[in-house]
C-alpha cells in the first residue's frame, strides 16, 4: 500500500497528528476540533475538520469546488454556526463572539461585495470608521493601502467603474484597513486574469511578510499557492485529506524528489529511467544524495552534460492525495 494513512476512515486522525507539530511552537491562530457543518441534516458540507494553523503561517487551504473551503471560512468567521465540533480563532469562539473575531481578522470572500455607489476611498473610509478607527487614522491607513495596492489613481472613481481585478484589490484593502492579525481569503484571485492574480498573490505574500499577518488562503490556483504558502491543507468532499508543509505532504504521499541527468546521446546510466525529454531520472530521498550519485555517474565513465534535482510540486501532491483519498480530478 502506497500510503496507509490515506484510507478515508483514518484521514482526520492523521491530519491532526501532522498539524499538532506546530502547537509546541506557539498558540495556534486557528484551532478546529472535529468541526462539522450540515445544512440539511443529512449531507455534511464539512466533516470532522481538526487542524491548527500557527501564527504567522500562510496556510493554503486547497480543494476542488464543493470541497467545503467556503463553509470552513464561514464557520471560522462566525457567519455560520457549527453543527458539531468547535473552533477558535485567536483564542475566540467565532460563533459566540463574531464581532471580536472580526476586530482581529480581515475577511475576503467572493460573495462579500463593497458599495458600488461609493468611490474606492469612500468605501475604505467607511469600513475604517465602522472598524472603530478615528477619521484621520482611517484616512491615513486608506491612503497607504490604496497606494500599496496600486489603486491610488482610481481612488475617486466609483466602485462600479472598477475592473474585477481592481475591485478585488479594494476588497483586500478593506480587509486590511483595521490592521488585522489574521486574514481569511476565499479565492481572492478568482475571475482575475493571470497578471492581476499574480499581483494580488504577491501583495498577499508581501503583507503577510511585512505585517506578520497569519493568512488562511482558500484557492484553486496551486502554482500561486506554492509560491506564497508555507503550509497546506487538502480538503475534498468535506473531509481533510492531509495537512502540513510541502515536504511533509510529499513524503507522506510517497512522492519522492528526483535526480535528473543529461548525458551524451546513446549512454545509459544504471538505475536511471529515461524520460521523454531525453533526461535520465532516479528517485532520491534527500538532496545530500545528489553529489555521490553524480560522482558515481562520472566514475562509470559517462559524459555528464547537465544535472538537477526535481522536487515534487504542490500540483503533484494535490492530485496524488485527491486520487487516493477522494475524487480524482484531472489537472
Amino acid at each position, binding site marked *: 500500500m502506497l500510503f496507509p494513512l490515506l484510507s478515508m476512515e483514518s484521514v482526520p486522525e492523521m491530519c491532526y497528528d501532522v498539524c499538532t507539530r506546530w502547537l509546541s511552537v506557539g498558540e495556534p491562530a486557528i484551532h478546529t476540533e472535529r468541526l462539522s457543518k450540515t445544512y440539511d441534516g443529512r449531507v455534511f458540507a464539512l466533516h470532522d475538520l481538526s487542524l491548527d494553523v500557527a501564527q504567522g503561517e500562510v496556510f493554503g487551504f486547497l480543494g476542488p469546488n464543493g470541497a467545503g473551503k467556503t463553509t470552513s471560512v464561514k464557520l471560522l468567521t462566525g*457567519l*455560520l454556526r457549527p453543527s458539531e465540533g468547535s473552533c477558535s480563532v485567536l483564542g475566540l469562539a467565532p460563533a459566540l463572539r463574531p464581532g471580536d473575531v472580526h476586530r482581529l481578522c480581515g475577511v475576503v*470572500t467572493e*460573495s462579500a461585495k*463593497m458599495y*458600488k455607489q461609493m468611490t474606492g476611498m469612500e468605501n475604505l473610509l467607511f469600513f475604517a*470608521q465602522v472598524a472603530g478607527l478615528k477619521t484621520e487614522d482611517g484616512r491615513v491607513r486608506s491612503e497607504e493601502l490604496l497606494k500599496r495596492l496600486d489603486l491610488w489613481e482610481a481612488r475617486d472613481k466609483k466602485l462600479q467603474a472598477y475592473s474585477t481585478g481592481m475591485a478585488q484589490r479594494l476588497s483586500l484593502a478593506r480587509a486590511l484597513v483595521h490592521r488585522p492579525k489574521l486574514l481569511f481569503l476565499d479565492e481572492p484571485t478568482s475571475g482575475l486574469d493571470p497578471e492581476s492574480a499574480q499581483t494580488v498573490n504577491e501583495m498577499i505574500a508581501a503583507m503577510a511578510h511585512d505585517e506578520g499577518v497569519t493568512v488562511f488562503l482558500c484557492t484553486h490556483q496551486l502554482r500561486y499557492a506554492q509560491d506564497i504558502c508555507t503550509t497546506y491543507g487538502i480538503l475534498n468532499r468535506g473531509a481533510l485529506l492531509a495537512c502540513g508543509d510541502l515536504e511533509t505532504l510529499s513524503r507522506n504521499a510517497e512522492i519522492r524528489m528526483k535526480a535528473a541527468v543529461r548525458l551524451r546521446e546513446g549512454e545509459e546510466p544504471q538505475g536511471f529511467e529515461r524520460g521523454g525529454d531525453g533526461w535520465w531520472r532516479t528517485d532520491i530521498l534527500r538532496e545530500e544524495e545528489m553529489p555521490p550519485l553524480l560522482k558515481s555517474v562520472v566514475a562509470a565513465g559517462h559524459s555528464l552534460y547537465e544535472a538537477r534535482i526535481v522536487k515534487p510540486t504542490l500540483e503533484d501532491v494535490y492530485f496524488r492525495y485527491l486520487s487516493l483519498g477522494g475524487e480524482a480530478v484531472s489537472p
Partner: protein
Amino acid sequence: MKIISMPERAVVKKDFREIWDSKMARNTLLVVPLLLAVAIPVLFLVVACNTPMDQINGVDSMMKLLPQEAKSFSLRQSMFYILTNTLFPMFFLMIPLMTSSVSAASSFVGEKERNTLETLILTPLSLKQIFKAKVLGCIFLSAVTTAVSFLSFAVIVSIGDIFLGMPFFLNWNWLVLLLFLTPGVTVFGVVFMVLVSAKSKSYIESVQTSGYIVLPLVLMFVGQFTGLFTLNAVIFLLVSVVVVLIDIPVWMIASRSFTAEKLLK
C-alpha cells in the same frame, strides 16, 4: 450616554446615502409626502372653497359625521372640517408607514440584494449594533419626513382655516395621532420590513409586500365613510395601544431573526 456610537453613525449615514441613491426609494420619500401632505390638501381646499354648496350630493349623510362642537359650522366649513378630521388623518398616516417601510426595504433588503450585507456583518460591529443602527436610521428618516410633511400640511390647512373663518385645526384627534399613532406606525413599518427581509429576495418584492400593511388604513377609511364608526381621539388612542402592542413582539422577533445564518441563506 450616546444613543449610537461612531461606527453605528457611519452605518446610518451610509444607509441614508444609499436610500438617496436609489431612485425608487428617493421618489417614494419625496412624492408620497408631497402628494398626501401638500397636493391633496391643496386640491381639497380649492374644491371646498369654490364648489357651489347646493350642487353637492349626500350633504345630509356627510353632516351626520360631524361631532357636537362642529354643529354650528356652515356647510362649507363643515365640509372642510370633515376633510381635515376624517380623510386627511388617513392620508397622513400613509406617510410614516410608506417612508419607514421603503427606507427599511432599501436598508435591509437592498443591502442583502447588493451582496453588501455579508461585508457589513464581517466588520467588528455586532449584529445587534447593525440592527440597531439600521432600525434607528430608518425610524429617524421616517420621523423627519413625517415632521416636515406635517408642518407643510399644517400650513396649508391653517390657510384654509383662516380663509374659511374656522378655528385652528389642531385638536385632540390630531395630537393623539401625531404623538402616539404616528410613532407606533413608523416602528411597525420598519420592523415589519426587517421580518420581510429574511424572506425577500429583492427590494421590489419587499416593497410590494409592504402594500399589505396599508390595508388596515384602507379599512379604517372605509369604516368611517360607511358610518361604521367615527374616528376620534379615543379611537386613535386605542389603535395606538394596539399598534404598540403589535410592535413589541414584532421587534423582538425581527431582532432574533437577524442572524448571519438566516440573512445570508
